[in-house]
C-alpha cells in the first residue's frame, strides 16, 4: 500500500515540538535541532482540531497535488490587459437590468446604506431612472436584479455598483483560458464607490462611460500595437519593488502605466473632454487598483478550475456579509461582515459613523499582493502602525497562512524574498490568522463618502465552515 520509497535518514536534522529536554538530548549528541516554542492551535475546539487533523492526514497527499497546481497557476500565469469595454459586452450572464456588487449575493433590503446609494447612482447613470428617488423605487421593487460580481468573473472595489454600460477592464489569463473583469476606477472625491449619490457622483459614472472609456480604448490599442498587450502582474511586480503593495498603494504602478500610456494620451488632442480625461488620470492615484484586481480575478478563476485544493479562491465583503470560497467549490461560506478595526478617522468621525467592511479588493491578498506585500511598502507601514516592523509583521502573518512564496513579487527590504501566496484555509483556521485587508471606511448612513481607513480582519467562522466543507466534499468523492 505504500506509494513512496521508504528510506531512513542518513543524517538527523530534527525539529522538536514539546518537551525541551528532547531537543537538548539530541543537541548534545551533535545533531542539528530546531526547537519549536509550540502553543495550542487557535482553533482548539475538539471539532475544529478533528477537522484539521483529518485535513492534514492521508487526504493531504491529494491536497498537496492540487495545491501545487494552484500555486503554479497563481504564481506563473501572466494575465494581459486586452480591452476596456462596456460591462454588458463582456461580462458573462450580466442581464440588461442588472447591477453587480461586491461580496456574496444579497437582497436589496439587506444592502447597506453606502452601497444602496451607489446602486441608485448607477441606476440613474444607466438611464433606468431620472433621479435617485426613482432609482430607489426600481431597486426596492426588485425590477433591477442584483448579482455578486464574483459570480460573474468580476471583482469591484468598495461600494461599486456595476451596470451594463460601466466600462470594465478585461484581464485575459491565456494560460488557463480565464478572463477577469473589474470596473475602471472612479477616482477620488464625490464618487459612488465611496457611497455617494450626488449629481457629481452620477456625473462621474457618465464621464467614465462617455469620455474615459473611448479614450482608454484608443490608448490600449496604441499600447498593444507598439508593445503588445500590457502584462499586468509584471508591471505590478515592478511597483512592488518601488514600494507599492498594489492594493492600498498603487502610486508607483499607476505612474509606470501612465508613463507607458503618455504618447497615446498626448495623441488624444487638447479638446475639453480629453483634458478632462487627463485631469481625471492625473488625480487618480489608485488607477491601477482595479486593473490589478481584474488580473487577480483571472488568476483565482484559474485556481477554481483545480478540484480538491484547500486554497482560498474568493474572499469578499458586501457591507453586510463576508464570504469565502475554497478551492473549486462554488459555495460561499458566509458570515457577518466585520467592522473595520485599527481605524484612522477623518476629524469629526468615529467608529459610530462607520459602515461595515465592503469590497472585493481582497482578491489581491489571495495572489501575493496587498497585505502579502506590506513589508516592502513604507506607505502601508505608516498606516499599519508606523514602523517597517509593523509592515513586516503583516507580511509575516500572511506567510504563516500561505503555502508558497511568489516568484515574481519580491520585497527588496527582505532580501528580495517573494511575497506569500496561496492562502490555505487549514492554516487560517489553525493559526487564527485571517488575511488582513487594508481598506477605506465609508459613512454608514449620511452618504458623505469616505470617513477614514483601517484594517479589516475577516471573521474566522467562514474559514471554519470552509474547512468543515472539505470533509463534506471528500465524503461525496
Amino acid at each position, binding site marked *: *500500500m*505504500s*506509494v*513512496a*520509497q*521508504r*528510506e*531512513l*535518514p*542518513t*543524517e*538527523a*536534522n*530534527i*525539529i*522538536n*515540538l*514539546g*518537551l525541551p*529536554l*528532547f*531537543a537538548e*538530548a*539530541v*543537541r*548534545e*549528541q*551533535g*545533531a*542539528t535541532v*530546531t*526547537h*519549536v*516554542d*509550540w*502553543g*495550542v*492551535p487557535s482553533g*482548539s475546539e*475538539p471539532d475544529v*482540531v478533528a477537522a*484539521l*487533523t*483529518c485535513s*492534514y*492526514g*492521508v487526504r*493531504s*497527499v491529494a491536497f*498537496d497535488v492540487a495545491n501545487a497546481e494552484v500555486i503554479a497557476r497563481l504564481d506563473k500565469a501572466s494575465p494581459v490587459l486586452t480591452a476596456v469595454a462596456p460591462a454588458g459586452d463582456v461580462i458573462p450572464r450580466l442581464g440588461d437590468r442588472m447591477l453587480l456588487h461586491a461580496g456574496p449575493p444579497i437582497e436589496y433590503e439587506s444592502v447597506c446604506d453606502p452601497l444602496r446609494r451607489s446602486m441608485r447612482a448607477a441606476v440613474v447613470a444607466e438611464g433606468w431612472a431620472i433621479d435617485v428617488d426613482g432609482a430607489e423605487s426600481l431597486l426596492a421593487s426588485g425590477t433591477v436584479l442584483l448579482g455578486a460580481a464574483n459570480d460573474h468573473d468580476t471583482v469591484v472595489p468598495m461600494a461599486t455598483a456595476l451596470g451594463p454600460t460601466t466600462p470594465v477592464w478585461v484581464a485575459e489569463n491565456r494560460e488557463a483560458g480565464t478572463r477577469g473583469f473589474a470596473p475602471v476606477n472612479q477616482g477620488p472625491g464625490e464618487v459612488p464607490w465611496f457611497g455617494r449619490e450626488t449629481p457629481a457622483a452620477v456625473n462621474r459614472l457618465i464621464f467614465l462611460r462617455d469620455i474615459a472609456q473611448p479614450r482608454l480604448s484608443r490608448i490600449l490599442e496604441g499600447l498593444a500595437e507598439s508593445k503588445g498587450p500590457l502584462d499586468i502582474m509584471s508591471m505590478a511586480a515592478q511597483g512592488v519593488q518601488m514600494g507599492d503593495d498594489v492594493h492600498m498603494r498603487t502610486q508607483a504602478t499607476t505612474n509606470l502605466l501612465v508613463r507607458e500610456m503618455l504618447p497615446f494620451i498626448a495623441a488624444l488632442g487638447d479638446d475639453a473632454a480629453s483634458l478632462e480625461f487627463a485631469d481625471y488620470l492625473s488625480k487618480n492615484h489608485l488607477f491601477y487598483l482595479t486593473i490589478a484586481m481584474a488580473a487577480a480575478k483571472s488568476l483565482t478563476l484559474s485556481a477554481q478550475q483545480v478540484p480538491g485544493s484547500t486554497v482560498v479562491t474568493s474572499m469578499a465583503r458586501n457591507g453586510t456579509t463576508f464570504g469565502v470560497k475554497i478551492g473549486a467549490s462554488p459555495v460561499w461560506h458566509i458570515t457577518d461582515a466585520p467592522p473595520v478595526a485599527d481605524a484612522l478617522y477623518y476629524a469629526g468621525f468615529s467608529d459610530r459613523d462607520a459602515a461595515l467592511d465592503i469590497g472585493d479588493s481582497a482578491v489581491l491578498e489571495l495572489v501575493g499582493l496587498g497585505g502579502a506585500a506590506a513589508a516592502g511598502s513604507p506607505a502601508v507601514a505608516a498606516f499599519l502602525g508606523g514602523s517597517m516592523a509593523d509592515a513586516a509583521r503583516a507580511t509575516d502573518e500572511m*506567510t*504563516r497562512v500561505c503555502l508558497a512564496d511568489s516568484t515574481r513579487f519580491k520585497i527588496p527590504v527582505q532580501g528580495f524574498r517573494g511575497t506569500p501566496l496561496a492562502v490555505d484555509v487549514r*492554516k487560517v483556521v*489553525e*493559526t487564527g490568522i485571517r488575511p488582513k485587508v487594508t481598506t477605506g471606511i465609508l459613512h454608514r448612513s449620511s452618504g458623505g463618502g469616505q470617513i477614514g481607513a483601517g484594517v479589516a480582519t475577516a471573521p474566522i467562522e467562514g474559514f471554519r465552515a470552509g474547512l468543515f466543507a472539505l470533509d463534506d466534499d471528500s465524503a461525496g468523492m
Partner: protein
Amino acid sequence: MTTTFSIRLFKDTYLDSVLQMSGTRVLEESDGVTWGSSAMATPANIETLLQRGFGAQDLDGAKPGDLFIAVEASDETAASDAATRAEAAMFSSRRAATPGLDQAPISLDQALRLEPSANIAIISVPGDYAALEANKALGRGLDVLLFSDNVSRADEIALKDHAAARGRLVMGPGAGTAMLAGIGLAFANVVSPGPVGVIAAAGTGAQEAMALCDRWGVGVSQVIGLGGRDLNEDIGGRMAALAIEALKADPTTEVILFVSKPPAPSVAQHVMSLANGIPMVAAFMGVDLTMTAPAGVVLADTLEGGVLRTMELLGRGAPDTSVTHGPTIAEAIDRLPAERTLIRGLFSGGTLCYEALVLLGKTYPLPVYSNTPIDKSLGLPAPDGASVLLDLGEEEYTKGRPHPMIDPMARIEQLEQAAADPRVGVILLDVVLGYGAHPDPAGVLVPIIREIMADGGPQVVAYVLGTDQDPQHFGAQVAKLVEAGCLVTETNARAAIAAGAIASRDRVKRSLSL
C-alpha cells in the same frame, strides 16, 4: 592589587534565568575574575552593583527589562575576556535554539523555513493536538517520533496509514525511544554502530535491547519504536510493517531484533511473515516458544534471550549473562532476617517491569502482583503478604510528579515504604541511563539504599540499563550501587531471577538459560 569594575548593558534583552546563571558561572570560572554576575537590571540588582563599587554612570538609564554582565577583575583584559565569554555562552544557546531569528519558531512550518532540510520530528505536545502535529510533519516529509500519548486508536490508525502513503515512519503514539542516523531520539542509550536493527513496541524494551547489544560488543544500526498499541489487533502492526520494510531497505542493517510483549496471535504471524528475506529475532516476552514461526524467524521469550539469539545469528560468541557485582545470591540470603521473604519491585521502565514479571512467573514459586499484571487476576490491591512489582512510570504514579526515569527522587517514598515492611526481603530496582534520563540516578538512590539496607533491612537487587558511552557512564553507575551494597546483575532478566532466588532462599546458582 587594584580591581577593575566593568559592566555591559543589553537594552531590552531578556534571557531565561537559567541562561543568566550560566553567564554568571562563566564569569566566576574566568581567570582573574573576583566577582561576576549576569542578571536583569532590577532595582535590587542595581543597588547591589552600586554597593559593590560599580560606577553609577555605567548603570545610567538601566531598566528592569535590560540585561547586564558585571565583572570585578584584576585588570581590564581579564574583565573584558570574561564578559565576552559570558555573553557568548548566554547568547549562543539562544541562537542555537533559534538560528537566524529573534524569536523561537512557534510552528512546525516556521521551523522548516529555518531548517528546510529537517527530516525528523520529535513530538511531545499534549495528546489532543499530537495527531494534528504528527500529520503535518508527515505531510512535510519528516519521519516522526510521537512521544505523546492519549491519542485515539482511530487517530493512530489514520496516522499510520498516512505515514504508509508518504513512505515515512510514525513511531508512536507513546513511543519513548528511537535511534535514526546514529542519533538517539527521546530516551535513548549511546551505542556503537553495527548490524542490528531494533524494532520495539515500547521504550525501555528498545533501550534494553540496544544497551545489551552494545555492551556485548555487537552494534546497532537503527532503533525504531512502534508505540505500545501497534501490535494490538485493531492497529494490526501497521507501524511494525513500515519498520520492517525500512530496515530491509537499510544497507546498514543485517538482522532485525523485534522486541515486544506477545502481540495478538494473528498480528504476530503477520509481522513475522514480513521479515521474509532478512533474518529476524522475534523476542515476544513470555511467549510460548513452541509457537510456529516462519522460516528465518527465531523466537525468544525475554529481552536477554532476544539479544543472545541475535548474536548467534551473527555468529558472535555468547557473553556470560550470569555475572553479578556486589554480594552473591548466597551472601544476600545470609544477610536477610528469616521473616523477610517478599519481593518489592520498583520499576521506572514499563517493559523492564513486564519482563521481570515474566521471569518471576517462571522461577519464583509464589504469585507476584502488579499494577500492570500479565495475569489480570494478579492486579492491585495485592493481598496482604504478597510480592508486588510496580511500574512507577504508569500514570497513577506520575500525576503531578516527574517520571522516575527523569527524577529518581520519585522512587524514594516507595523505597522507604517498602523497607518499612518487615516482611520485605528483596527490593528490585532498575536504573535507566542514557539521554533523557537523570544525569546521576545511582547517585540519588545510593544514600537511601544504604539507609534501608542497614541493620537487617531488605537486600537491594539492581539492574543498570546503560552503556559506557552514556553520559552517566554504565561502569560508574554500577560501581556506586555496588559500593552501597546492592547486588547488580548483567541484565534485567537476571535481576528478576536473582530477586526470586533470594526471596525464596534458593541457594542453587540459577543457570537458567534464556
